[in-house]
């Protein structure tokens, strides 16, 4: 009997670890569904709506890359808790569509997994909480240290930066970050109604 203890212990630990990993992915997926709902409601009401009652953050924007059929709801703040559920809007950076740089960060293995497939020239749509849609074009990518991003938050341009960990397929966390820089090419201010309609047909 004793010789079964070791393999069973291994199996148990293995299952727990696998389960934890899967839980992270499951949480990321499930949260996005709830966030979609909350975001649609935010646009309709014009007020921030919390995705679930005990949340300490709320959706602020939606990022979409049509070519890759990828989209994610961005949350306010880039704390570890927020990033578990969706990309975060880094504090002290501009809102999308405003002068300055809007920086959104997300995990490379969940919401920004698609980032490695985005190529220069791709169009990125950002829908703000007030329903306005801004279209950016990816114009450059770079790899930087987390504390030397070189992002000037008060630049004169209208820019967007999507950031995630680099390298994409590494297993452990490192100090390097992959930045995708994009510049505003089109600001679209359609009315709220038509927006929420697009959203509903999209989801």
């Amino acid at each position, binding site marked *: 009997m004793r*010789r*079964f203890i*070791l*393999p*069973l*212990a*291994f*199996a148990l*630990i*293995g*299952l*727990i*670890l*696998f*389960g*934890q*990993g*899967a839980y*992270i*992915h499951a949480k990321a997926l499930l949260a996005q569904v709830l966030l979609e709902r909350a975001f649609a409601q935010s646009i309709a009401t014009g007020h921030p709506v919390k995705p679930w009652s005990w949340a300490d953050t709320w959706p602020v924007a939606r990022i979409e890359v049509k070519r890759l059929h990828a989209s994610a709801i961005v949350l306010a703040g*880039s*704390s*570890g808790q927020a*990033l*578990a559920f969706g990309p*975060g809007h*880094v*504090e*002290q*950076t501009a809102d999308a569509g405003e002068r300055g*740089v809007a*920086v959104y*960060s*997300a*995990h*490379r*293995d*969940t919401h*920004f997994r698609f980032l490695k497939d985005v190529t220069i020239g791709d169009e990125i749509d950002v829908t703000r909480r007030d329903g306005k849609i801004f279209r950016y074009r990816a114009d450059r990518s770079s790899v*930087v240290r*987390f*504390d*030397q*991003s*070189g*992002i*000037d*938050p*008060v630049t004169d341009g209208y820019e967007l930066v999507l*950031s*995630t*960990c680099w390298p994409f397929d*590494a*297993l*452990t*966390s*490192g*100090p390097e*970050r992959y*930045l995708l820089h994009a510049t505003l090419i089109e600001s679209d201010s359609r009315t709220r109604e038509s927006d929420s309609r697009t959203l509903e047909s999209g989801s």
Partner: protein
Amino acid sequence: MTIYDACESSPQIRLSRRMRIVLFFLVEGVAALVIGFAALFLSFDPGWSAELPQQAVLRPSDARSGSLLFKTDDGYADALRLGIDVDLTVSGPTVRARVTQIFRNPTKDWVEATYVYPLPAGGAVDTLKMVVGDRIVVGDIKERQQARTIYEQAKQNGQKAALTEQERPNIFTNSVANIGPGETVLVQIEYQEPVQQNGNEFSLRVPMVVGPRYNPRPVVQSVDLRADGSGLGATSTDPVPDRNRISPEVLDPATNASINPTNITVHLNAGFPLGEVKSHFHQVKIENPDSTTRVVKLAEGPVPADRDFELTWKPAAEKAPSVGLFREHVGNSDYLLAFVTPPSVEQAQRQQLAREVIFVIDNSGSMGGTSIIQAKASLLYALGRLQPTDRFNVIRFDDTMDTLFPTPVAANSANIGNATSFVSAIQARGGTEMVPAMRAALSDTNHDDANSVRQVVFLTDGAIGNEQQLFETISALRGRSRVFMVGIGSAPNTYLMTRAAELGRGTFTHIGSVEQVDERMRDLFAKLENPAVTNLSAKFSDAIADLTPSALPDIYRDEPLVLAAKLDKLAGSVEIKGRIGDRPWSVTLPLAGAAEGKGLSKLWARRKIADAEVARTTRQESPEDADKSILALALEHQLVTRLTSLVAVDKTPSRPEGEPLKLSELPLNLPAGWDFAKVFGERPSLPAAPTGRRADAGDGKMHLAALKRSPVATQRPGTIQLPKTATDAELKMIAGVILLTVSLLLLVFNRRQTSPQ
């Protein structure tokens, strides 16, 4: 399972032996991998935490620095502006001050303004008025939390509201909500203060600016501070829990014109024929309507609020009256204020006690500029005054500390020479870790020595935010030492000085300019060298009196004893007894002769509140009891304290619903004579840093809460910190799969071993 089946069915022993070896290596390899991964987890953990974005920078409370200030490109040009008018009336022993702050909003937004300002530490703030257009709204005294709630409610409703809160006994904050675009709102506070007397000279001070404070980091270091078993060292949290509230923006004088223009008028009714009247730091015009009255105005109109205003006056007669007795009737009680100056005893009549003097000099960055020059000049003067029989030592501190001699040494010429060159070499830099220095100064090597007196002379501007820690240190460790505070510079922290001197049973001397060094230090040495009046007590013959200060402090040469009392009836007399050196002294004052005074009840209440705060510090009273008596006094006498605030709300809502309200914290001037770079470090993003400026690495160590809110020229956040954006999901899943495989293989292995038997 297929392997298992295959092995089970075929009895080929050679194959199984090979399989066993293969399996063994496989298990070994996998185990190595697992251990390797475990090691990865371990070694990377600190790496991760180091890479986290600095949360401190991103706290929402920091957003108080105001988006209004953040977004204007051309500095504060567009921001809210403030004008200050100070009107002082001196009637005999008391000063009544009316401070009017004029908030003007030239922006297009609705604004909430907060302004941090200093008042005299003994000032009793009792009135708040808000003038909106032609309406005057009078504030009510409320418990602090309640006042805050009322104010927030009015702010939400779009009503104009003003709130006066005490941050320290000498630092107050006025908040004004809903100032409309283009509007001007007047906020007026009034306070009562006793006139200061020293020998022949009477004085009043109007502090004008809160100097940037050094707020020590929340470190574990403060736990061992009171390891003397007094139980005062409860695990320390942040030594300055309210650092945000006392650290407004400070403008760099090099890149900004001075702000906050201030006008001052003093109506001086001394009650006796006046001799010399002098303003020490401001040019003034003095009118003489009659012999006992003066009107003092600023000569060249409003001045920037960057230095304290000090006015002194002397009687025309040779000697100032040595006794003053004043009364006021409020409600059912009489209030009494008495000044008694004990006679000075001649040197020859007593034997000189040997002294041990410890000099402590603050050479932190806030002392940079003229302050350090004054401090060094004062200390050099003091060294020159030491007698050969004295023993002494010198300690200097910033965020580091040096003690000149290991133990106090005799004041012979060699040691004095040593100390003089040590002091001359001191430069101002770094932070202000005052508590360790005070501890070192109070550590008494021969505390049983009754044949000498021990005096600590502490020279500082008091620009720290953790006053309470310093007070606790003094009250716990003072022993037989007496602490004499010397306040240096244009805007010292008088609350720290007076309270520290009171707890240390010494005095507070203020030196505001290099010219004052000689005169003030001579006064101080007269106090150090002459015996104090000790064992003081006061006894009322008929009346039942509630006396403050409850324990009468020792009085030094030329100082008056100031007594305030609440009496049930104004009858009989009061007898004051004490000892001057070794001779008994007493004086009897008949109460019937007291003159009518104004606002004495407020002074009495303020003084009682200070007593309660001291009792709280020294743990003579439990915090709850002290707070209870403070609250009762404050509510009865309408005073702003740590626990009570004044709040005024305009009933008519003015801000239309839906209009956003922006917060604007009014910036302060740097106190005159301060060196901006020494306090805040280098100006990081000036286009081209002047090459002559030293890039002093020591300044970088300085931790000021206000650092990131330094002036607009340096306001741009350097670069954005990116959060950690990798999960360990994949890692965990892979490790999980590997472990599952291993367990499976082990099972097979076990099975193979068992099957032959």
